[in-house]
């Protein structure tokens, strides 16, 4: 079943027949779920943002102070004084570089896995799938991995984190992009090859434009994954200028206690770019996965 291409590219208002005939009880159930979710997700978030604007004395006032407190920006000033904004730029650079390499390496690989017939194709692709657990569970081997990279002289360098992030996101990206390329009709690239276009040319002029939404979706997932990475970021680099932001957020849960004010202030700042990305590219994201791995 191929998704109809025109609608995916320009989502036209579609009539959901299911909506009309859905029973009232399912609708109520779904509505209740959504309301519950708004409470469960929204309340801690709102509370976190409010906490970031509280002074020491107001933090743990009991009964809890929802709005009747004197808001202050002191926590944000404290966070800024530690160079947090500079580290946000560092993190941003890491993620952009990682995403660039993930796409540059992932797209040709995904294309080859889908379009070429070559020996060991299937086992090699399963090897890519098998490395997903290694990337998601990498934290469990933290210390041996640290010793290994330290022996090789890679720790505390500007490139170690983008390299690790790229490797962590690569398997998933190849998986998603392969799905996207599957849905591009083979006739298109065959026609181009008959016209004398090289394989590289097909990749550039046929596959790249048609899988752009999937590339966007994969990039967003890779960016979010790298932005939120904590364990490698806290261990692999030491110089303050090389630190990404997640360990810095965590550093406010210090040896001398949780400093809720700066902690929530820095966590709020750390979330902003991702919310922004979803607001700006949210539609791309859905369209991309639509054309991508998500093909039925």
């Amino acid at each position: 079943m191929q998704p109809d291409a025109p609608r995916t590219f320009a989502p036209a208002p579609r009539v959901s027949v299911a909506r009309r005939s859905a029973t009232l009880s399912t609708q109520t159930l779904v509505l209740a779920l959504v309301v519950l979710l708004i409470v469960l997700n929204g309340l801690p978030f709102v509370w976190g943002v409010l906490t970031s604007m509280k002074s020491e004395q107001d933090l743990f006032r009991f009964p809890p102070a929802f709005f009747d407190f004197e808001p202050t920006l002191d926590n944000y000033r404290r966070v800024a004084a530690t160079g947090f904004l500079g580290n946000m730029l560092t993190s941003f650079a890491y993620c952009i570089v990682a995403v660039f390499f993930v796409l540059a390496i992932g797209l040709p690989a995904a294309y080859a896995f889908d379009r070429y017939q070559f020996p060991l194709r299937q086992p090699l692709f399963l090897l890519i799938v098998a490395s997903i657990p290694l990337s998601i569970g990498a934290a469990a081997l933290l210390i041996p991995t640290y010793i290994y990279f330290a022996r090789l002289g890679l720790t505390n360098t500007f490139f170690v984190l983008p390299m690790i992030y790229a490797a962590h996101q690569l398997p998933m990206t190849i998986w998603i992009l392969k799905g996207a390329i599957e849905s591009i009709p083979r006739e298109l690239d065959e026609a181009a090859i008959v016209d004398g276009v090289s394989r590289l040319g097909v990749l550039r002029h046929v596959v790249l434009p048609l899988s752009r939404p999937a590339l966007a979706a994969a990039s967003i997932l890779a960016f979010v994954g790298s932005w939120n990475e904590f364990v490698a970021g806290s261990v692999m680099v030491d110089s303050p200028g090389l630190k990404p932001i997640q360990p810095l957020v965590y550093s406010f849960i210090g040896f001398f206690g949780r400093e809720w004010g700066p902690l929530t202030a820095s966590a709020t700042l750390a979330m902003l770019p991702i919310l922004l990305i979803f607001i700006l590219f949210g539609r791309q994201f859905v369209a991309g996965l639509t054309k991508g791995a998500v093909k039925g």
Partner: protein
Amino acid sequence: MKSNTAAFASVAPAFAVTGFVLFSPVVYALWFSLHEIRYGSVGAFDGGANFLRLLQDYTLPGTLLRTVIHTGLSVLITVAIALAISVGIDRMKPRAALVAKMVVILPWITSAVVATLLFRWVFINDIGVASYAVSSLVGAEFQPMTNSTGAMTLLIFVSVWKRLGYAVIVLLAGLKSIPSECVEAAQVDGATPWQVFRLITLPLLKTPMLLVVVVLTLANINTVETPLVLTGGGPNDATRILALDVYERAFAIFDLGSATALALVMFAANIVMVLAYVRLTGWRV
């Protein structure tokens, strides 16, 4: 022949990167785990002593069982709820859908430690705003974590809460790809909404489901932050799962040998599970 060269040239960089960053540390860790580890450095070769110690640990079977329960139920519940919610959001008007998506992804995009701490503070702690509201309305206190079942239920609840956003986003994208003609055709044939969902929607969601199940399973198995921050593994070990055990071996007891051995065993199991799952679902490579 030429095509083979091109194919290998295309996939080679991917294997160079994953091989170096993901696989070679595992090989090093395997070598590491076969030695006696003292004071954080590698000592004499001692065969499988670190692995043998795992076999002798009488607490591990229980921990394994709890890991299976936690991961199994968390994944199942997350997928079920995510399906319902993504169907709901799918039917919303675009602007409402955007807001709903934003709300849904909040816990997923917050750092795991901060998100869990905030959840615990707001909903569980008796000085939290929700617990305070509930206790002043109802007059009774809510203390779910002081018994074993309650603590595990809560851990599963928070695991679902934390990762629901990811599942919703991916499933929602899958729903959007289902052509409305299929649904309409089925309805013309007199299918009930439930039949439409079961016979049309679900089968067409197979690939996104696979993605979601694999990622959620791995994320839940490997989570340290959620149980550590929420319950510390207690009470009476009720929420001690394997990942927490690896963490405590490495950072509380500083037994790097057995921590690494256990992590490797977990990796092996994870890989077998993912591959088996991919095969079982008949996913075409």
